[in-house]
């Protein structure tokens, strides 16, 4: 059985990271070239770490399944990035950002990791500005900030509605420089399909070239995975269509524990579904909640009416009513569930009745249409483009959608998994957000991991490895892993069934949304645990993947990713079933306060649940890491 040692360094919380860093082993500069580091992924987390490790002198091989590092899903983040700069002089501090993140995560994250995140947050902004990231500025030329979902201070930095794009292009430019100078070898269109362990340590990967179909072996002294989140298990989500869990899942099957898979975030402000051809859901940035007011009609009979004809007294601004101090800025999980409750009560709006209004008429009256246009113009344009409606004239319709996965591969304080030499960064790990992530904190975490944490901790690990001891790809472990890849590919191509990959993905998505979505029950999860294995069996018996493995084959790519989702979905349900409490994004209907809020069970569940693979058809082991809160007092997370 695996052991989970969080390796939290000793000392007082605020000093842990600096003391630990000061005592790390260093790699002799002359030896750095002798180490090879594989980085899988070049989103914010992977791109920043690949560039930084190469600057330090390590040889870096970077793999992405995209055609360019600039296409990583990080590009789509809109709203902003948090940092404890206190530029607004509104009382922010490292401690406050730390505290907000721990509380926002509903006391299910590791204090030491979160504190480090808050500490390095300020450096991220410095780094990005120096790279030429054009953050929004005030007229005096200083950086502008805004407040973002769940925060009472303005600590969010942003670049119009394209913050993720600009931060990613910053990391991409640093990476490009290192590729140009030979420090990083980039492998684009290259999908990692297996992790290779040599003597129990992560020493390589097996990759399929998505253009030629060629399968190749790559060895290194350690492997860093920054492969993003797994929200597409739900089929419909705000993720890019090709985001997937394959790298993480294949690492799990090689022994890396998967932590808290059931913690998923449902974002409250997305454009509702319009038909069953739907391929993705579009997020409307949460920043809209700064000025927009959310409501539904008080009476179900009004739901059919034109919203502009519903008088003020017949509207229920339910977030302002239920959460007077946070109002429309209540955290994501709270706001999402409230929207669901309104729709469950029959007060949802729009053609599907799965929607609530987000109304800007007050803001337009108060600030004028021009100011509203400056702040949100591009978002209103997106809305118009998709729905054909103008949010200047009629309230937007929004509904929650899957947006982020807090769960991920288990890592210790060094961001190393329980498999020595396998580091996991960014959304792919489970580390910092507990059971719920605050807005603008994923970008912060990705860049914190990549620029300021992994380069130290990976170096510390490499210092324990003999320079120049990179295994050869002739090691039998590489052949074994390659055979496994080829076997799976052949199995997919040879099934020759009747149904498409998309067909199965839709069905899996529906099971997950119905039973492991915004609200979960014991019965529902038990049902899903029957449905998913049955669907998986059907998939393997009846999927049809046309084409060959020797060339670009998108159906084959999708099939492989879905095969993994069909297993991961089951683990998510199992995790949700065993966590008999509600916390953050995990809401079990059996465990709630009378007002519908999460009822945590700190006595029995103040721990991380990390699942260890036990082979096909065997229930995985559930390991736990206790969460000890030494600095923050656990309390009921109230936003009233």
């Amino acid at each position, binding site marked *: 059985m695996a052991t989970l040692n969080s390796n939290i360094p000793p000392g007082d919380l605020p000093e842990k990271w600096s003391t630990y860093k000061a005592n790390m082993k260093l790699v002799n500069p002359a030896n750095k070239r002798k180490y090879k580091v594989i980085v899988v992924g070049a989103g914010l987390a992977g791109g*920043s770490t690949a*560039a*930084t490790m190469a600057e330090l002198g390590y040889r870096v091989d970077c793999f992405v399944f*995209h*055609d*360019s590092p*600039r*296409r990583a*899903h990080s*590009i*789509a983040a809109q709203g902003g990035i948090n940092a404890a*700069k206190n530029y607004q002089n509104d009382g922010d501090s490292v401690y406050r950002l730390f505290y907000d993140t721990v509380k926002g995560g509903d006391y299910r994250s590791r204090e030491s990791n979160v504190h480090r995140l808050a500490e390095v947050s300020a*450096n991220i902004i*410095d*780094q990005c*500005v*120096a*790279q*030429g990231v*054009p953050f*929004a*500025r*005030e007229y005096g*030329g200083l*950086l502008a900030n805004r407040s973002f979902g769940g925060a009472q201070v303005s600590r969010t930095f942003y670049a*119009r509605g*394209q913050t993720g*794009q*600009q931060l990613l292009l910053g990391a991409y*430019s*640093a990476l*490009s*420089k290192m*590729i*140009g100078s030979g420090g990083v070898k980039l492998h*684009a269109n290259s999908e990692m399909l297996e992790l290779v362990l040599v003597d129990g340590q992560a020493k390589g990967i097996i990759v399929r070239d998505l*253009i030629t179909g060629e399968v190749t072996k790559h060895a290194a002294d350690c492997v860093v995975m920054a492969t993003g989140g797994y929200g597409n298990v739900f089929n419909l989500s705000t993720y*890019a269509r*090709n985001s997937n869990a394959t790298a993480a899942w294949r690492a799990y099957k090689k022994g890396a524990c998967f932590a808290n898979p059931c913690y998923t975030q449902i974002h409250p402000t997305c454009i509702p579904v319009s*038909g069953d*051809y739907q*391929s*993705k859901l*579009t997020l409307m940035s949460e920043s809209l909640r700064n000025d927009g007011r959310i409501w539904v009609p008080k009476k179900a009979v009004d739901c059919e009416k034109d919203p502009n004809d519903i008088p003020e007294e017949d509207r229920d601004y339910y977030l302002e009513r239920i959460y007077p101090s946070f109002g429309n800025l209540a955290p994501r999980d709270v706001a999402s569930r409230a929207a669901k409750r309104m729709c469950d009560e029959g007060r949802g709006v729009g053609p599907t009745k799965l929607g609530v209004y987000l109304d800007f008429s007050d803001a337009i009256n108060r600030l004028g249409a021009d100011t509203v246009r400056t702040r949100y113009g591009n978002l209103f344009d*997106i809305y118009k*483009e*998709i*729905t*054909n409606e103008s949010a200047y004239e009629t309230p937007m319709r929004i509904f929650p959608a899957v947006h982020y996965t807090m769960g991920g591969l288990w890592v210790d304080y060094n961001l190393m998994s329980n498999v020595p030499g396998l580091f996991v960064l960014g959304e792919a790990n489970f580390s910092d957000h507990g059971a719920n992530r605050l807005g603008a904190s994923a970008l912060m975490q990705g860049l914190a991991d990549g620029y300021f944490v992994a*380069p130290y901790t990976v170096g510390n690990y490499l210092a324990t490895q003999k320079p120049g001891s990179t295994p050869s790809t002739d090691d039998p472990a590489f052949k074994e892993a390659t055979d496994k890849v080829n076997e799976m590919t052949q199995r997919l191509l040879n099934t020759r069934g*009747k149904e*498409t*990959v*998309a067909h199965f993905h839709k069905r899996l998505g529906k099971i997950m949304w119905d039973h492991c979505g915004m609200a979960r029950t014991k019965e529902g999860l038990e049902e899903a645990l029957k449905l998913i294995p049955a669907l998986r069996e059907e998939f393997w018996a009846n999927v*049809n993947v*046309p084409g060959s493995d020797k*060339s*670009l084959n*998108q*159906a084959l790519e999708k099939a492989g990713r879905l095969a993994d989702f069909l297993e991961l979905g089951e683990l998510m349900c199992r995790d949700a079933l065993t966590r008999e409490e509600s916390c953050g994004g995990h809401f079990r209907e059996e465990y709630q306060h009378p007002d519908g809020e999460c009822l945590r069970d700190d006595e029995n569940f103040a721990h991380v649940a990390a699942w260890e693979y036990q082979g096909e058809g065997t229930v995985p082991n559930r390991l736990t890491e206790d969460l000890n809160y030494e600095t923050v007092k656990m309390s009921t997370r109230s936003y009233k």
Partner: protein
Amino acid sequence: MVADTSSTKNISLTLRVWRQAGPQAEGSFVNYKATDLNPNMSFLELLDVINDDLERRNEEPIAFAHDCREGICGTCSLVIDGKPHGPHDGIASCQTYVRSFKDGDVIVVEPYRAEPFPIQKDLITDRSSFDTIQQAGGFISVRTGSACDANANPIPKEHADLAMDAAACIGCGACVAACKNSSAMLFVGAKVSQFALLPQGQPERDSRVLNMVAKMDELGFGNCSNQYECSAACPKLISHDFIAKLNKEYIGATVRSAFKP
């Protein structure tokens, strides 16, 4: 072509799609008819529907590049009826909706046609030459951890805003596909301008523009002949003013480098 957007009736369309099995293979147009389409369906979802049908019949689906499906990743790259990214200005292929077409329309769907972007399969082209240009100079050299406080250098809002206008480029390559010379001047101009407008970009200002332009030429991108098809096709409406700025930067840098001690 651009239909009345208020229509809500389902429609039928015929797509004439370029099919090409691989980089060396011969390509040709194949017709696909799609019926009963909800006007709120996106153009890529229309391709999904056609592909679903093909896969069910055990035929190879149409290969097309896509990812975010919200106009920001720059992956999608269709030429629809001769226009990169389709009939509407200021949006990417993935933001084109069926409601932009009329019942019964025949729509031609092709990949980008530009020498520096060779076709890989069907509608997918290789745009790695853009990455290569970036690697030649599209960055500000700043080692991780060496930056000064972010507010140490105030930047006038107008400069920051203009830099952001340039930085909004999504690297999709529509500018190249739209240009009869396959020029990458808009792409390069946007990156060069972003950094030239910011104080952080000054130290490498000259070498950046010289290296990026040299790489662009080396990779076979053509010259700009001031027709500005590029900015018309740009999904982010990046202004061709940045081409003028590129020219200015290039001339300035050339002159300065000639007089370098």
